[in-house]
């Protein structure tokens, strides 16, 4: 126990400052009014769905929980069920085998809800594109609010995407 406590004291706090939202990541007009955003505020429940990724994007989602980024410190946490979620964080090209599960997860998430698509695959289908096995980008299957490019996107980019989704637009949103 002594060693454990000593290690905690020695390590100190390594958490760094979170990024600011970035309007360039927004793909759909903000669907939530300011009042709801105020209620979501800084307490957000995320359900992650891997819809067919190579698992690279998952590594960076895990990293957002590392002490350097400490996503939970911002009141944003991952939950075990879509029923508890405000936001779906979706990775991968959507494989055709996951299409139904992703739609069902989306439907199971109570309104109002947000969707952030993650990674080059989530944004465009990435290297896997569309085929007999892949539906391509997440927006081909469910509505997407914010899309974060990168292969995989770094933890700060992921956090920026999430913070963008839960902030009111500051300028005219870009609609793709």
């Amino acid at each position, binding site marked *: 126990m002594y*060693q454990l406590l000593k290690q905690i004291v020695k390590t100190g706090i390594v958490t760094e400052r979170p990024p600011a939202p970035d309007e360039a990541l927004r793909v759909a007009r903000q669907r939530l009014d300011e009042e709801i955003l105020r209620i979501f505020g800084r307490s957000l429940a995320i359900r992650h769905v891997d819809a067919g*990724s*190579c698992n690279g994007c*998952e590594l960076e989602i895990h*990293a957002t929980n590392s002490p350097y980024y400490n996503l939970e410190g911002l009141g944003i946490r991952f939950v075990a069920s879509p029923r508890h979620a405000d936001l779906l964080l979706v990775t991968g090209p959507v494989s*055709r085998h*996951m*299409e139904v599960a992703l739609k069902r997860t989306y439907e199971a998430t109570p309104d109002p809800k947000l969707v952030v698509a993650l990674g080059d695959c989530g944004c465009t289908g990435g290297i896997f594109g569309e085929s*007999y096995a*892949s539906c391509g980008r997440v927006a081909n299957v469910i509505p997407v609010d914010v899309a974060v490019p990168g292969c995989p996107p770094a933890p700060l980019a992921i956090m920026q995407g999430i913070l963008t989704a839960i902030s009111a637009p500051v300028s005219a949103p870009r609609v793709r």
Partner: protein
Amino acid sequence: MRIEDLPIEAEPVPGAVPAWHAVVPAGQLRDLCSRVKEKGGRLVALWGSDETDRGEGYALHVALVIRSGLVCFTVPLAHDHPRYPGVADIFPAADRMQRATYDLLGMHARGNPDHRKWLRHGAWPAGVFPLRKGYDPGAVHSRVEDRYPFVRVEGEGVHEIPVGPVHAGTIEPGHFRFSIVGEFILRLEERLGYTHKGVEKLAETMTLAEGARLAGRVSGDSTVAYAWAYAQAVESVTGTEPPAPAVWLRAILLELERIHNHLGDLGYLGNDVALAFGFFQFWRLKEQVLRLNQELFGHRYLMDVIVPGGVARDMPLAGIEKLLDLASHLEREVATLRGIYDEHAGAQDRFIGAGRVAPSLAAELGLTGLAGRASGLAWDLRVEYPVPPYDGLEVRMATHRNSDVAARVSVRFDEVLESLRLIRALLRALPAGDLVVPLGGARPGSFGVGWVEGWRGEVLIGLHVGEQNRIRRMHPHDPSWQNWPILERAVIGNIVPDFPLINKSFNLSYSGQDL
């Protein structure tokens, strides 16, 4: 068993990997497999190919390990109703590989007790085989009903818990069907294939050079192992010898990948026994590795650094110093944390005895990689078949006989420390010179292979060349194919709440086997 001991005419496959290739008739396949098995050999991979566009039939490819190295059999099959004698009774790991080969190519394994589909769910109908040459890769089928008959366990008090494909944590999708009594697991049945995204079909639209990016995205957590294995395969078919500095850097990258994955898993193993301290400590260390990766090689997970012919970028000179500093720092920290894990009664209580795969069962079923080494199977490519630069490093293999979660934790700790030692040794002897050489031309129809000990186990790439340096067929093989079915055995008799812990101690890839 040496290659001379097999009653076949085998040609050595050029390149870094000690490998042989032979065309054998279907009638001889089972006898060859039995001989290899008898002498302690193993099945690494099994895949098929469509050769009908060349006026032939289909072909089955089986890669086995014998003492001399890797031996790859190609078995020509008929044009109509291609079938071959199944080998799952000899090598149990072949079962799912054979079923996948049927789903993708319509090649039937005779005598396979399990005829259920494996990679096909609802995206394409029965009787359609996407990896056949005439199949249009852009084809989209209307969804078919996805029925899969799970094995039902009956008896008083037995009930089922279906889990997934969307899991409770941040993990890849798959379905687990638990049959339980009270809290005890009587049976677990996995259903995988959800992330099947057409990797192998896509590869057939690419050149040998283009395939590298795709190979590095078969299973993102093993991108270095795949990229290196792919590079070996391409270098094998093009007669390219990668320069020494590139090969040294590749090994440094592979060990960095091993370290960051083990650190991450050690953190989660702490987390899963309510030792959040472990998660935060190990993920702090992991992040430090990832940041240095980014600084020195331009990518946190080292994607696209290894290319066929060499490596795509040099490490800045200051990198040597920085890596040495990181190595000393990690060594100290990991040693401290190991002491804390070892003495933490709560953690050890959960680790010890959970998820055992007895050495005899592990050997019979073909457990591989780090999980195999934790079940007494002393097998590590870096030791058994060391390619440069491992041939000069005398890698010390980590093994354990206890076969439980604690043993897998222990092997990971040992391997992190050994990888740090290897990185130091590699940095001391880092040769100077060119980092990449141009690729030679590949003869259409030639076959090459890559085989690398990734952090999870052995990654194999089987590569068949088409016209004009294009990929005709590429099969990436993840060690998860071998280990997923054995996870089903590891959990029997354990309680359901220990499943996440046992699962994490293996940490298998879904994407790598779903393809």
